[in-house]
């Protein structure tokens, strides 16, 4: 690893004034309107925002799946805003690990081979060994030969996490990683993310609209209408599995109180 990697003062992600405009013929759609953002090595961050806020577009740019219209993006010391498709593929392969809401595992392919996939495109050696180590890190060392159909949802997502970390990336981007899971499996998956962050210092960025997930991270970035509206540390990040998620009734109650309790005058309007 180079010096940059060990220098904690240089951010892993450093974006400056990024915009993204979709040209739909007559209509020009400004999805991102100038976003600047730094994420430090070892941080665990969530990006939140309602549908249409531009958070998916931001994630695509962060993940080198898409490129900004204007602005600079420095990922782990490399300016990637203007790279070619082939170079972007290399960046995705070496520096980014994706975890998707719907797992995106290959059909009828063993867990070990799923995890080997990024290594195949990287052309690295000792693929089997590295894949087994990654699966061990997510607690699936006894499921190497299992097919997705033989694994629970939580286990499938853990295979996906192993796939994301196997290439030793600079960041992990997780897009609603618990969205397709029941709360028990969701908690397990969050525990793994937190443990990997704590023990191996893996920089992790969640894209979510679930506040409960966001409360498990150190910092929340709120996006609305293509701009950052808030960027704050979480006062007391939750440790996955230690706090009980409030029941749906309690959450609803909370919403009602937030909407009606503070101003009775407003309600009379």
């Amino acid at each position: 690893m180079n010096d940059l990697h060990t220098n904690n003062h240089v951010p892993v992600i450093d974006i400056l004034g990024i915009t993204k405009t979709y040209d739909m013929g007559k209509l020009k759609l400004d999805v991102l309107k100038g976003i600047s953002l730094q994420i430090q090595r070892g941080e665990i961050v969530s990006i939140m925002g309602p549908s249409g806020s531009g958070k998916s577009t931001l994630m695509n740019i962060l993940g080198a799946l898409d490129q900004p219209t204007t602005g600079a993006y420095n990922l782990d010391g490399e300016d990637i805003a203007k790279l070619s498709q082939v170079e972007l593929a290399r960046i995705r392969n070496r520096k980014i690990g994706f975890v998707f809401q719907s797992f995106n595992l290959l059909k009828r392919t063993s867990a070990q081979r799923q995890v080997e996939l990024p290594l195949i495109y990287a052309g690295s050696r000792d693929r089997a060994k590295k894949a087994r180590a990654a699966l061990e890190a997510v607690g699936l060392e006894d499921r190497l030969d299992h097919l997705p159909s033989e694994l629970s949802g939580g286990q499938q997502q853990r295979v996906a996490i192993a796939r994301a970390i196997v290439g030793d990336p600079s960041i992990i981007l997780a897009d609603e990683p618990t969205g397709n899971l029941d709360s028990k499996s969701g908690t397990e998956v969050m525990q793994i993310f937190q443990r990997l962050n704590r023990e191996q210092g893996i920089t992790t960025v969640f894209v979510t609209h679930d506040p409960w997930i966001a409360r498990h991270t150190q910092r929340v970035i709120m996006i609305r209408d293509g701009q950052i509206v808030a960027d704050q540390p979480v006062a007391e990040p939750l440790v996955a599995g230690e706090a009980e998620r409030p029941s749906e009734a309690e959450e609803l109650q909370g919403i009602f109180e937030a909407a009606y309790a503070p101003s009775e005058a407003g309600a009379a309007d």
Partner: protein
Amino acid sequence: MNVFENLRIALDNLLLNRLRALLTILGIVIGVAAVTSLISLGRGVESYVASQFEGLGADILTIRASPPRRGFNRLAIKPLTTENVTALASGVVAPSVRAVTAEYQVQATVVYGYDSLSSSIRGVSANYAAANDWYPLEGGFFTEQDNTAQAQIALLGSSTVEDLFGSASYDPTGLTILINNLPFTVVGVMEEKSSTFGQDPNSAILVPLLTAQSKLGNARVAGAGYSVSTIQAQLVEDADVDRATDEIEAYLLAEHGITDSTQADFSISNPETISEARTEVFTTLTLFLSAIAAISLLVGGIGVMNIMLVSVSERTREIGLRKAVGARSRDILSQFMIEAIMLSLLGGAGGVLLALGITTIAGQALLSGVTPSLSPDVLLLATGVCSAIGILFGLYPANRAARMQPIQALRFE
């Protein structure tokens, strides 16, 4: 990302969709099988024809009366005569000729008891048996005495025996048959002879030459003896076939008073030229049939393209994922190209196996004596054509897969 990985991915995917892969390659299997077996059978027949003519020997020239290609009145054709035979046999007019046999054919009705058949009677000279290496099963061939005496005797081919007496194993020696109401004594049965293309020697009825000329036909030619249908000239050892042909041609042109050799009213051929002409016809026919069969290869190729398009669209999310974890467009392109090529090569292999079966069965059951040859160059051709089909029809789907944007592909439901 190496070829081996792509081969493994392609193989995995084909195994996941076995039935679909099988149905897809069916078109190619049939196409390759049709083309391969046609070419193999064609070649088998070619070499069979060649071997048949080889048996006849290249040192025999056959002379027939035949109208010139154009510009000559058919009726003015002068026949070949016994006088020509004598002159050619003398060795003076054509030094390359060693011996000459003559044959006179006449159509006649043959009767035995209540059975009758219409047949071509072949009057042949006494040296015919030796010249053609074809002898009676028992006893001798006609002699010169039989000829001059215009003896009413006949030798029968094995098929004729079966037609006339009901069984090929019947021995009719000594019986009397009627040819054009004249009694002929059967003096023997000829050996069975493998058939040359066009005519079955076993259906022959042989009689002495002069008997046929004077008693069965009206072959007398004023001032020149009798007419003959064909003259076979055997050449001296190591004779130059072209030179012998020229000698005979010059003699007959002079005899017939023709100065322009394109107006010759006779033809001189040897087995080799006949064999070549027939082989050529057959080769053309084989190629034509193969071309028709190749259309099914085209259909098979379209089938491959179709299923590859389905496969690409089904695996859109997989393509998106592969790109997200670092696959370049060319990795995706080669993945799908290899799958298409593998599909069509499997089809080709299946086709070759099927062709092996077809040619073996056809060789044994349909055409006795014909050995189809499935030679390496045909196999190479099949492999090449199938790879080409895979590349040609795989390119479009593979390119479509390679150009997918990872974001859209990942979002695809």
